[in-house]
């Protein structure tokens, strides 16, 4: 078997808690990520789920080296990222991109759509000005955004359209891995479906690998080949998506699944009973 595109081993991110004014000292650590390991084979999706504060976003940032990990190894396409210097890291970053949660905050309001999508190309000095302009038009078309709007500004578009702009920007450098950090949680249901379908199509057509982070367990199931459930900085359960959803092994996963409200009053009644039974698993945690 070939090496997975991304393998993360025993990743830890600890933030120091400091006390004192004159005698500044570290009294303890917040163990935001505490020994996380996972692998993603090329072309597949790992769904990382968990509640707020579970460490899923920090795990993603540490994987990207946006936060330097305290401990552990991150191997991407055969290279160890944790020991790379800034210049080398910059080159690797062409292959790893990110789509953010909030399409309002993640696009510079003073830049046109064309400049936003073309910025990664410019930063990495790819092609001439003219070829970049053509590339931007292609990218926008790829994500279902009308290329004739390249000279408009983000505020002229709805949340769903803005998320398409964010995805086009992430695709600009033809990356191998895209970290999707809650990419649809700010969107309405009908728009959410459009974006999820788009991400699936792009994965199929471009052979992309996704690290897909979300708190909505139904959304994650439809996107993922494997699932990792995080709680308190640790992965409490990991496995093929089907197995995790149909026969969860940890009580925490069970409680999490039972808490999801499903749009069916009858199924809901059964879930409610399950939920009350599993409540202890949560209060312990």
């Amino acid at each position, binding site marked *: 078997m070939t090496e997975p595109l991304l393998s993360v081993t025993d990743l830890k991110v600890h933030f120091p808690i400091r006390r004192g004014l004159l005698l500044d000292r570290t009294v303890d650590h917040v163990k935001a990520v505490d020994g996380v390991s996972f692998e993603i084979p090329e072309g597949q999706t790992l769904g990382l789920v968990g509640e707020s504060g579970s460490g899923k976003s920090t795990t993603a940032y540490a994987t990207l080296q946006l936060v330097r990990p305290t401990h552990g190894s991150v191997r991407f396409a055969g290279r160890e990222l944790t020991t790379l210097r800034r210049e080398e890291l910059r080159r690797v970053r062409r292959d790893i991109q990110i789509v953010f949660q909030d399409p309002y905050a993640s696009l510079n309001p003073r830049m046109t759509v064309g400049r936003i999508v073309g910025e990664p190309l410019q930063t990495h000095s790819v092609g001439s000005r003219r070829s970049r302009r053509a590339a931007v038009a292609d990218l926008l078309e790829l994500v279902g955004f009308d290329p004739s709007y390249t000279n408009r500004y983000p505020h002229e578009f709805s949340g*769903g359209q803005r998320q398409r702009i964010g995805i086009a920007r992430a695709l600009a450098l033809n990356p191998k891995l895209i970290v999707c950090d809650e990419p649809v949680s700010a969107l309405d249901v*009908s728009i959410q479906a459009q974006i999820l379908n788009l991400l699936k199509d792009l994965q199929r057509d471009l052979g992309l690998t996704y690290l897909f982070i979300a708190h909505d*367990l139904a959304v994650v199931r439809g996107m993922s080949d494997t699932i990792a459930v995080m709680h308190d900085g640790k992965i409490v359960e990991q496995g093929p998506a089907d197995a995790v959803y149909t026969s969860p092994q940890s009580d925490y996963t069970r*409680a999490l*699944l039972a808490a999801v409200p*499903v749009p069916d009053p009858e199924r809901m009644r059964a879930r409610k009973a399950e*939920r009350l039974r599993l409540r202890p698993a949560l209060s312990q945690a």
Partner: protein
Amino acid sequence: MGRLLEVEDLRTHFFTRAGVVRAVDGVDFSVEKGKTLGIVGESGCGKSVTALSIMRLLPTPPARIVSGSIRFDGRELTTLSERELEDVRGREVAMVFQDPMTALNPTLTIGTQIIEVLRRHLGLDDRTARRRAAELLDEVGIPRARERLDDYPHHFSGGMRQRVVIAIAIACEPRLLIADEPTTALDVTVQAQVLDLLDDLRREHEMAMILITHNMGVVAESADDVAVMYAGQIVEQAPAHELFHRPEHPYTEALLAALPDLDDSDARSRRLTAIPGRPPDLIDPPQACRFAARCPYAGCGDSCALEPPALRELRPDHRVRTAHPASEREAVTA
């Protein structure tokens, strides 16, 4: 059981520089005593403006209730003076908002904030009010209630803060509780606990509830009846079981189809059914059916593009605003 709240032909418009935004445009519904009505819809459909109109909490200008009637227990609310309203708000009709951090005053202890309500509406003295406040916190499931009265909102987690807000809302035993996205800011496990709490309280206090949410699952879990809103209007209304099992309006069907299913083992290989396009601009909404542009059944030559469909009763308690309800479509194709 009787009707506690009756809303008829409610129209709330915003008079802005860009034009008149018809945020709520002809909404009718009623809430039975002790029952929960769920109002669902996507952003901008007018569900929150409906709630704020009932409470008369919208800034005027730019907002104005241009027509309609809101009768609470036989009393017309739209014509009450601000003074008279203050006796209704918080006492007979209470509200829980989405974000518990902004709903609470960060500079006052939560004890002070509960006691304020008890003194204003029930005229309790300080000592009685304090004792009652501790009982309320205990009732909403906050451990060590008496000690926690002296804590400030930032000492509580999101879920606990929402419990405090709920304690304030039920302090005067209101007969109607309006909860506007009460669990949207919370994690799923906490959401489940808060929904269970609201349901328990509703039963024990024989309160009616209006639960406003964008989440179909939350409605399925908690509501007796459901109203689906689209572009400022109710497009379908039915008992919850009926709505989820026999949806009639193409929009309701599309919304349910667009939801990823937690129990679908083929989800990975399946595409979701997205709804093309987006809701209309409410400054200049279509003269006829507001969903027509996105509706898969709106053909040329039919009434969809010509006249607005009325909200009609297809079956007892099941009302729908479309020329193409599912049951009639089947009859045509069969």
